[in-house]
């Protein structure tokens, strides 16, 4: 179909055509994707073989110094005048060997069953005549196994790097090039400056984000709850049992969990959608109102709105949750004294009302942010666009739809996406306002699974995890981890789709 034919179609037809062509293109896209796979695998394989080829070359063509550095890291380096580098690698190798032989291998050996005996009572001579000895600790075994594996990976990389470097030094020596420590150290201020700059942030990231994250994902495959808190008790691998408890309908009562899960996930998405878009559009409207040329005291209006940002969120949210309270809330009292209602409304503990109140309060919180962001951008829209629209006789609404909105969406697209994703994990607003309530009610006589304890109808996935792992008793870490992975899947999926779409918008360069 040519472009002229497409343009001559009516709007609904165009949409139908687009949908049709989308489905038509699916097989081709899949075929293209499949065709790519062998090449990608080949490319990866080729890349993966490079280290082995280097190692082989070093072993075969290198001299004895290079060959010895297979066993003693850095030997080829400190015998060829790169003393500092060689000694550092050697020290690391010694550290690793000591760590692994004294400690690490025990942990790795225990990883498969996470310990046999948690503690033992041993008689002693002094009162109280027995003493508990803690032996295996599943938590520490799992943790140190991860640490050991990561340490080992880093060591292997450094080992490979040091051999490669020794080989390079050997080759340089053959052609009469001399290496020195000075040159090596100078490279860290020049070419390798990022290694110095990024070392501290990256170590922090690995120790306090990546290792805990791997740990928590693995916890999802164990039966770790606060009933099995180490060091008194042990926990164990259970495979996919936790997933089955939550999502497989054959296991008793997990239908209840699935229903609640669907409710929570629907509400999470509805919430994220409304929280993002109400804030965005209303904030833009407020910014436009303040930006009007005839309006004076612009700074005052803005400052008043910014107060919400300046006051810490937990203060304002807790205060508002008090104001909307059923028995002690000032809102109910005011409505009563105005004669609008006779009985107090349970704003924060009735099913649909709570959710609406939360969205409305979130508007109150979110508008100032959008207003601040939009103000500057709105002022940057070229004035001549509006003038030419006025000459063409466009109404203000049409100007908004055809100029302001596309421009704003174009500029703030990434912000909108990050807001959407951020709202999926918006803990503060939900937890501090309603604590996730009103709670789910189940038919009497049904045994409610522990995972649903305290779960309410305005809970997001993140507050559900919080309840499972922090406030509930027993704390169910395994289920929390599974839910965390659910959040990851949802967020990753959404951001992949949205970012792809927005980058297509970016490429158009309509307003540049």
């Amino acid at each position: 179909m040519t472009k002229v034919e497409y343009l001559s179609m009516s709007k609904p037809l165009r949409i139908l055509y687009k949908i049709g062509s989308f489905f038509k293109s699916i097989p081709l896209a899949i075929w293209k994707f499949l065709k790519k796979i062998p090449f990608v695998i080949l490319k990866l394989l080729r890349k993966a073989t490079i280290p082995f080829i280097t190692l082989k070359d070093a072993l075969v063509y290198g001299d004895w110094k290079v060959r010895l550095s297979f066993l003693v890291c850095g030997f080829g380096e400190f015998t060829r005048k790169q003393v500092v580098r060689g000694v550092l690698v050697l020290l690391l190798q010694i550290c690793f060997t000591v760590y692994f032989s004294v400690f690490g291998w025990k942990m790795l050996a225990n990883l498969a069953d996470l310990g046999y005996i948690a503690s033992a009572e041993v008689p002693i001579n002094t009162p109280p005549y027995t003493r508990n000895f803690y032996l295996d600790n599943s938590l520490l075994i799992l943790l140190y196994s991860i640490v050991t594996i990561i340490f080992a990976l880093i060591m292997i990389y450094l080992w490979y790097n040091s051999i490669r470097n020794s080989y390079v030094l050997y080759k340089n020596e053959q052609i009469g090039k001399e290496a020195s420590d000075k040159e090596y150290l100078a490279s860290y201020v020049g070419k390798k400056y990022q290694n110095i700059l990024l070392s501290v942030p990256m170590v922090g990231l690995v120790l306090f984000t990546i290792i805990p994250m791997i740990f928590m994902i693995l916890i999802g495959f164990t039966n770790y709850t606060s009933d099995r808190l180490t060091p008194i008790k042990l926990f164990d691998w259970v495979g996919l049992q936790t997933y089955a408890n939550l999502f497989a309908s054959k296991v008793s009562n997990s239908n209840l969990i699935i229903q609640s899960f669907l409710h929570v996930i629907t509400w999470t998405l509805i919430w994220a959608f409304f929280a993002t878009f109400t804030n965005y559009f209303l904030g833009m409207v407020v910014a436009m109102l303040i930006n009007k040329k005839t309006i004076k005291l612009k700074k005052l209006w803005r400052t008043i709105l910014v107060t919400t940002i300046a006051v810490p969120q937990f203060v304002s949210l807790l205060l508002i949750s008090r104001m909307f309270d059923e028995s002690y809330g000032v809102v109910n009292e005011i409505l009563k004294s105005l004669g609008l209602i006779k009985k107090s409304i349970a704003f924060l503990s009735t099913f649909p009302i709570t959710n609406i109140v939360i969205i409305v309060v979130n508007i109150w919180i979110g508008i100032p942010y959008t207003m601040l962001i939009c103000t500057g951008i709105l002022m940057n829209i070229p004035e001549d666009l509006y003038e030419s629209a006025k000459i063409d006789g466009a109404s203000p609404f049409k100007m908004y739809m055809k100029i302001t909105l596309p421009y704003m969406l174009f500029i703030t697209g990434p912000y909108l996406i990050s807001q959407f994703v951020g709202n999926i994990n918006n803990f503060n607003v939900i937890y501090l306002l309603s604590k996730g309530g009103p709670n789910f009610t189940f038919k009497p006589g049904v045994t409610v699974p522990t995972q649903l304890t305290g779960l309410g109808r305005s809970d997001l996935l993140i507050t559900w995890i919080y309840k499972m792992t922090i406030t509930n008793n027993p704390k169910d870490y395994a289920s929390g981890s599974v839910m965390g992975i659910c959040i990851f899947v949802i967020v990753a999926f959404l951001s992949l789709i949205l970012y792809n779409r927005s980058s297509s918008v970016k490429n158009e360069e309509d307003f540049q």
Partner: protein
Amino acid sequence: MKYKDSIYNPDFIRNSSHKKKHTRSMKAVSKIGTGATYIILVVISFIWLIPFVYLLLQSFAVKFEPEYFIPREFTFNNYVQLFTDTTYPFWKWYLNSFIIAVVTTVFQTILVLLTAYSLSRLRFKGRQAIMNLILILGMFPGFLGMICIYNILKLFCGGNEPSIFSIIIIYCANSAMSYYIAKGFFDTIPKSLDEAVRIDGGNNNTVFWKVIVPMSKPIIIYTILISFTTPWGDFMLASMLAGLKTSNWTVAVGLQTIINTIGNETKMFPFFCAGGVVVSIPIMALFFWLQKYYVEGIAGGAVKG
């Protein structure tokens, strides 16, 4: 359309009264529009300020009575109580929050700037990989990992609750994750300046101190502001790491506990309000003082994503 009223009629154009009438009516419309806008703005300001007025008024209340918006009797005792109460050691929480916020600010600012600078200015192998890694890590609900950290810290403290020091470590360790906005700002600084410094014999270090730092005052102040206010107002992590020892709490955890303890709803409400006011004042002062930089920061972050 009749010829008489159309612009093709020279008389119509020449007839200035027509034009005047038109502009006058336009003016009237825009006047009504302006009036309506003012009314809307006043209503909005009213809605936005009323909770804070309520907070301030109730912090002086002798007794909390829900039916009175303005308390009937005023007192200063609630503020005194903040410093004397023994079950809820507010001043201790305040000190904790302050220490956490200050120390975090120092380290976080440095780490964020270092990360942003190297990812924006230096080109090296693995740069894209690090950025992708941080993007993916950001998709995990971060506090899941905190559960693990909490249990481990507890283990290392011999079963005791970890101190506020652990909160500081966690806030600081994750600071590399929030490099986006600073990086977006650094990207806009022209590269020709770097090259000029390099020609004069400077290295990466000089580029950072002589070009980037002097030119990014707004973003440095923004980073400081954010890294001070975030731990100050953070509830989730603090509540998780707080444990049962009240002297370890931050203001966020403390005030939440006060207000949500059953039996405290009316009794402690003025105390809570006084606490809220005291907590908000430094942040508000800081915020209004540095508002300009904050706006630049979030607006820049929104545009660059």
